C-alpha cells in the first residue's frame, strides 16, 4: 500500500518503530511529537496525509485534543484517525468514539495488528 501517514507520538523509540514498520510497508510518514505540533503541521502543509495515527497521553495537546482539532477543521474533518494508547477504559473509548475514530489500539501494539489496522483504514478512504 502507499500513502502519506501522520504519526503523533511522544515516545521516540515507539515512534521510530512505527516509522520503520510503515515505511517498510510502502507508506511515507510525517511525525509529530504531540497534538499541538501535529495540528500546526496540518495547518501549514500543502498536502494533507491520508491517515492520522496518534497516541493519547502526550504533553501540550493530547490525542483527544488532536481529534477535536482535526474534526473541527473542514479541511481535515474527513481524515481517518487511529488511536494507539497505553491506557484503556470504557470512558476513554467512548470519548474517542465520539470523534469517529477508525480504531482504538491498546499498547503494546504487535506489528501485525498495526499494519493490518493501517491497511484497513487506508482502504476505507480510497
Amino acid at each position, binding site marked *: 500500500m502507499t500513502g502519506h501517514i501522520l504519526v503523533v507520538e511522544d*515516545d*521516540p*523509540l*515507539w515512534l*521510530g*518503530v*512505527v516509522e*520503520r*514498520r510503515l515505511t*517498510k510497508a510502502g507508506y511515507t510518514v510525517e511525525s509529530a511529537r504531540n497534538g499541538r505540533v501535529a495540528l500546526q503541521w496540518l495547518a501549514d502543509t500543502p498536502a494533507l496525509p491520508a491517515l492520522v495515527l496518534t497516541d493519547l*497521553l502526550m504533553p501540550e495537546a493530547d490525542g483527544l485534543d488532536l481529534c477535536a482539532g482535526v474534526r473541527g477543521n473542514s479541511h481535515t474533518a474527513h481524515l481517518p484517525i487511529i488511536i494507539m494508547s*497505553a*491506557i484503556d*477504559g470504557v470512558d476513554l473509548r467512548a470519548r474517542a468514539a465520539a470523534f469517529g475514530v477508525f480504531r482504538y489500539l491498546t*499498547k*503494546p*501494539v*504487535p*506489528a501485525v495488528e498495526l499494519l493490518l489496522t493501517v491497511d484497513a483504514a487506508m482502504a476505507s478512504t480510497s
Partner: protein
Amino acid sequence: MNELPVDRTAVPTAAPRILVVDDNQDSLSLLTALLHEQRYRTQAVASGAEALTAVVAHPPDLILLAGGLPALDGQDVARRIKSAHDLPFIPIIQVTAPSELHETSAGLDQGADDYLSRPLVAGELLARVRALLRLKAAQDALHSRHAELQRLHEQLRAGEAYRENLVQMITHDLRGPLTGLLGALELIEDGSLGPLTAEQGDFVRQGLQNCQTLNDMVADLLDVYRLEAGRLELARRPVALRPLADQACVQVGAALAGKKLLLHNHIPADFPPVIGDSGKLVRVLANLLNNAFKYTERGTITLQVLVQPDNGYSHTVADEGQPSLPGRQYAIIQVQDTGVGIPAEVRALIFRKFYRGEPGGSGRRIRGAGLGLYFARHMIEAHGGNIWVESAPSGAPGSLFCVSLPLAAAGQGEEA
C-alpha cells in the same frame, strides 16, 4: 447538607437558648424570668412573624409558643419552622387555652412536639423543657455524626478516584516504554533490520519474552485493581484449552533458560472447550507455570486436564471460592511440578496478595511481586471456577496446582 449553626458547635457547653413567643407582656416576663432562674438563655418576641424572623436569624434550642397566638396561628408557626429544611431540629412546646385543647392532636401532627394548657404549672413546664432539650441534644449529636459519616464517605470516594488515577498513570508509565522496547526487539527479531546470527536471535527472543512477561505483570496489576473495584469485564466465549495452554507455554519459555526443566503439555487437542476470556486465561496459566518454575530447579512441569462434575469448591478455604453450578461439567486443569512443594499450613496463604514463599526455607529471594497467584485466584473465581493446591500425587515431590473452569454446554462449539 445542613450546616450546624456556628454558635452552638463552637460553644457546646453554653446554656441552651430558648425562644419565648407571647404577646402578653406580663406572661412573657414571667416565663423568661422562670427560665432565667434555671440558667437558660432566652429571647422574647411578641408575635408569630417575629418568631419566624428570630428563628431564621439565630436558631434557638427550643421554642415556647405561648399566649397571644390562637392555637391555629401557633400551629402555622410550628409547621413553617418544621418544614424549613435548612434549619436544625428545634423542639417546640405550644401553650394552649383549655378551650383549644381539641386542636392539640391536629397541632401535634403539624409539628409542635409537645403541648401544655393554661394555667401553666412551673414544675411541669420545666420538666417538659428539660425533656425536649435532651431530645434536642441527642438529635444534634446524631446530626453531627451523620455529617461526619458523610464527610468520611466523600473522602473515601475521593480516595477511590485518586487510586483510579494512580493505577492509570502507573499503567501508562510502565506500558509506554515497554511498547517501544517490545516494538524495537520485534523489529530486530524478525530480521527487518538485517539478518541475525543464531546467538543474536536467541538473546533477542529471550529479551522479547521477558518484555512480554513484564507487560503481563502490568496487565495483572490493572486487572487485579479492576477486580477489586468490581469493574472487570470478561469476554466470555468457548475457548479450546490446548492452544490456550500452548500459548502460555510459549510465553513463559524464556524463564526455562538455565534450568534443567522439562515442560510437558498433555492437554489433548480435542478436549472440549471451556467458557472464558482467553486473554485472561492465558495469563492465569502463564502465572501458574512461572510460579512452578520459580520453585523448581530441575525435573518436569506437567500440564494435564480432566473433567469433573464439580469445581473443587470443597478444596477452597471457608468463605472463599465459588460453589459449583448444578448440572455443569468442569475442566480441572492441573499444573504439576517436581519442586520444593508447599507445606499444608501455607497452602491457603499463597493465593493472598503479595504472599511470597521462600523455597525450602533457604532464604533465597524469589523474583516477582507475589501478585501472580492472587491474580489467578480472583480471575478464576470471576470465571465461576476455583484454584487450589495439593501435594503431588503418590508421594512424588512437588505441588499440584488445580484450576477449575466451566465447560461450554453441549452444542456451544468454539467460535471461529
